[in-house]
C-alpha cells in the first residue's frame, strides 16, 4: 500500500535498496530534495512515522544517509536519502509529522546534519555544555576521549503574564525513578505548559554498539532499558537474524514469546499498582507488588534471572524449559489470575480511585495519531497498533490458533491506560497457557553467521511499552556500522506533554505514571 503510493508519485525517481532485510520491509532511496515530498505522500496514505535516523556511510565512500521509517498497519516502508559529507543538510519532515522534530534535533545534535525547516533548532540529548562540534555518531569522533565542558545555555520556553509561575522538577526526582527534567508553567493549580528535557542518562549506547561484535551486541541491547530487557534483546536478535538469513528453531521463537509475555505481565502489574499508589490507594501497590514478586522469583528459579536478562541470544535462546518448569508456571498463573481478578474488581468498584483516574491526563485519538504514539499509550487512545498482530513472529503469526485480542480504548485518560494494562495481563496469562500447552519440540539455538558487508536488517517487536524497532547496518568489514534503537518512549514522551495540559499540578505524577516511559531507552 505505502510502496504503491510512493511508486505512483515518484515513478523511477525512487530506487529500491536490495540490501535491506527482511524482504517484507521495503527500503527505497529518493533524491534529497524529494525527501519531504515522500513524507507528504506517506501522510496522505495515512501512514504513521515510526522513526527517523541518520548514518555515517563514509566507510563506503557515500557520505551520510538519512532514513525515515513509516508504518501503515503491518507494512513498514523505509525512505532513505543520501547526503554528501561536505554539505550536510536535509529537508525536515517536522511540518508533516510532529514526531520528526525530536528525531531531527537528535540527528543534528549527534550526527551534525542540519534538518532544514525544523522549527525547533535547539539541541536534544546534547547538553549546552558539550562542545558545539562534538558529533558522537560520526566515524571521525573518538568515543573514548572525554569531552571538555564549555559554557552554554538552553533556551527554555517561557510563559509570561499575571499569576504565571514555573515549577522545575528534576533531574533527581523524589522517588526511585530515572532522571529527567520537567518544567511546568502553571496558573493557580492548572498546568498551562509542560516542557520535557531529557538526555540525562545518555550513555552513548548507539556509539558503543559500533565497537562491539555482533554477539556482544545483544548484551548491550539487553541493558538499554532494564525493565524491557527481553523485548530489546529479541528485537536486536531478530534484526541480526534477518540479515544473516538465520532460521531460528521454532521452539526458540516460542520460548522468546513466553519470556516476552512474562515480562509484560511483571511490568504491567507493577505499573497498575504504581498508578493506584499515585492516586493514594497504596493497597493495590502492595497487593500487585506481591504478585509481581512471585513472577520474578519463578523467573529466577526457572530461567536463572529475575528479569530473564541475557537469555535471548542471536540464533535462539540460551535456556530451555522442561515439564516441571511448565507445571510450575501453570500453578503460578493459577494463583496469579485468581488474585488478579479479585483485585481488578476492587479497582473497578472504588469510587475514590475512579474519581482520580477518569478524565485525567487525556490524550485524544486525534492527538495520538498526530504524534504517532505507539503501544499501550496508543491503544488507550484509539489507535489499534500491536506488532504481535501486525508484524508477528511465531507463535503470534498463528492468529487463528492464538486468537490474540488487543484491547483498544478511546477515552485516552489515565484509566484507559490502566485498563489496557489490566486487559493485557489477562490476555498474556491466557497466551502463556496456550504457548506452554502446544510448544513444539526441538532445538533452541542455531549458529548465526556474520552478515555480508553493507547490508541492513530491521525488526519491530511489541515490548510491554509498545513497538521497539532495531535497524542494524553492517560495515565494509562485516562489523556493526550502525545500530539504530527506537524505544517506544522516543515517541510516547511527546504524548505526556499534551496529556497533562489543563490538568492540575498534583495530577502530574499520576499522568506520568500512567505513561511510565523509559528515560534510558530514550536517551540511549
Amino acid at each position, binding site marked *: 500500500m505505502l510502496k504503491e503510493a510512493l511508486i505512483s508519485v515518484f515513478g523511477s525517481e525512487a530506487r529500491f535498496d536490495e540490501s535491506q532485510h527482511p524482504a517484507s520491509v521495503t527500503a527505497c532511496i529518493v533524491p534529497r530534495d524529494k525527501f519531504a515530498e515522500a513524507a507528504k505522500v506517506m501522510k496522505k496514505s495515512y501512514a504513521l512515522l515510526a522513526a527517523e535516523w541518520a548514518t555515517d556511510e563514509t566507510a563506503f565512500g557515500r557520505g551520510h544517509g538519512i532514513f525515515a521509517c513509516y508504518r501503515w498497519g503491518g507494512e513498514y516502508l523505509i525512505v532513505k536519502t543520501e547526503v554528501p559529507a561536505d554539505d550536510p543538510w536535509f529537508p525536515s519532515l517536522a511540518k508533516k509529522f510532529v514526531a520528526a522534530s525530536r528525531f531531527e534535533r537528535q540527528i543534528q545534535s549527534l550526527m551534525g546534519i542540519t534538518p532544514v525547516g525544523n522549527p525547533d533548532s535547539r539541541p536534544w540529548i546534547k*547538553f549546552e555544555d558539550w562542545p558545539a562540534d*562534538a558529533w*558522537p555518531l560520526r566515524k571521525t*569522533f*573518538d*568515543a*573514548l*576521549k*572525554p*569531552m571538555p565542558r564549555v559554557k552554554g545555555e538552553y533556551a527554555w520556553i517561557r510563559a509570561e503574564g499575571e499569576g504565571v509561575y514555573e515549577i522545575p522538577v528534576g*533531574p*533527581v526526582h*523524589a*522517588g*526511585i*525513578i*530515572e*532522571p529527567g527534567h520537567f518544567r511546568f508553567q502553571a496558573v493557580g493549580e492548572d498546568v498551562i505548559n509542560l516542557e520535557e528535557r531529557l*538526555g*540525562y*542518562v*545518555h*550513555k*552513548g*549506547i548507539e*556509539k*558503543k554498539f559500533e565497537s562491539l561484535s555482533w554477539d556482544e551486541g545483544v*548484551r*548491550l541491547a539487553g*541493558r*538499554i*532499558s*532494564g*525493565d524491557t*530487557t527481553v523485548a530489546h534483546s529479541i528485537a536486536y536478535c531478530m534484526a541480526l537474524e534477518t540479515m544473516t538469513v538465520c532460521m531460528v528453531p521454532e521452539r526458540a521463537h516460542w520460548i522468546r514469546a513466553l519470556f516476552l509475555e512474562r515480562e509484560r505481565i511483571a511490568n504491567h502489574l*507493577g505499573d497498575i499498582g504504581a498508578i493506584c499508589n499515585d492516586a493514594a490507594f497504596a*493497597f493495590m501497590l*502492595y*497487593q500487585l*507488588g*506481591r504478585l*509481581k*514478586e512471585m513472577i*520474578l*522469583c519463578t523467573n*529466577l*528459579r526457572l530461567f536463572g534471572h*529475575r*528479569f530473564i*536478562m541475557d537469555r535471548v541470544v542471536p540464533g535462539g535462546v540460551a535456556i530451555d524449559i522442561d515439564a516441571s518448569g511448565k507445571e510450575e508456571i501453570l500453578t503460578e498463573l493459577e494463583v496469579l489470575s485468581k488474585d488478579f481478578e*479479585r*483485585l481488578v*474488581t*476492587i479497582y473497578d*468498584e*472504588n469510587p475514590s480511585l475512579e474519581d482520580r483516574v477518569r478524565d485525567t491526563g487525556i490524550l485524544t485519538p486525534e492527538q495520538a495519531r498526530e504524534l504517532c504514539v505507539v503501544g499501550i499509550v496508543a491503544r488507550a487512545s484509539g489507535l489499534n497498533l500491536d506488532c504481535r498482530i501486525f508484524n508477528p513472529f511465531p507463535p503470534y503469526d498463528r492468529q487463528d490458533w492464538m486468537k490474540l485480542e488487543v484491547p483498544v480504548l478511546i477515552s485516552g485518560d489515565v484509566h484507559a491506560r490502566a485498563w489496557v494494562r489490566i486487559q493485557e495481563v489477562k490476555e498474556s496469562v491466557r497466551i502463556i497457557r496456550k504457548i506452554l500447552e502446544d510448544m513444539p519440540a526441538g532445538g533452541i539455538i542455531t549458529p548465526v553467521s556474520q552478515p555480508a558487508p553493507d547490508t541492513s536488517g530491521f525488526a519491530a517487536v511489541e515490548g510491554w511499552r509498545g513497538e521497539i524497532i532495531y535497524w542494524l547496518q553492517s560495515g565494509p568489514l562485516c562489523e556493526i556500522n550502525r545500530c539504530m534503537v527506537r524505544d517506544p518512549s522516543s515517541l510516547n514522551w511527546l504524548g505526556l506533554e499534551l496529556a497533562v495540559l489543563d490538568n492540575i499540578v498534583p495530577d502530574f505524577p499520576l499522568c506520568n505514571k500512567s505513561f511510565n516511559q*523509559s*528515560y*534510558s531507552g530514550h*536517551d540511549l
Partner: protein
Amino acid sequence: MIRILSQIFRTGIVTEPLHPDIETEVRGTGVRLEETIRKRFRRSLTIRQVDAGSCNGCELEIHAMNNPIYNCEQFGMHFTASPRFADLLLVTGPVTRNMEIALRRTYDAVPSPKLVVAVGDCGCNGGIFGESYASLGGIDKVIPVDACIPGCPPSPTVLLNGILKALQ
C-alpha cells in the same frame, strides 16, 4: 470496602513466609541489619536513591526491596525524597556526563557524616558501558564511595546484604 478488607484478611502478613530459597538469607541479613541500624542510627536509616545513569534495572530491584515480601522498612530503613534527610546515598550508574553535576550536587546536599553505596556492576565500575565521551564509569569516579554492591542487577537479597556490609 468489604472486598478490600476480605482481600487483606485473605492475604495475611506476607512478610512472614518467604520462599525457602531466600528465607534464611533474608532473615539472617534482616536481623543483623535491624541490630546495626538500632545501634548506629537510632533505629532509623534514611536512604536517598540517585539514578546517575542506570538502565532502570537496578531501580526495579531497589523498588522490590520495598515490596511486602522484603519489606525493608521492617529493619528500620526507609527511602526519603530529600538528600537533606539522608544518612546514605544509594547510587546506580554508570555516571553519565550529563548527570555528573546533578550527582555532585546531591552528594553535597547530604549532611555529613554520610555513606555512599554504589549499586550494580555499572555503579561499581561502569559495567558494559565503561568509560566514554558520555559515560564517566563507576560512581567512585565522581564522589567518594564507601561500599559497592555488584550484580546486574543485584537482587533485593543481595542489596539488603550489601547495605548491611556498608553499615558495619
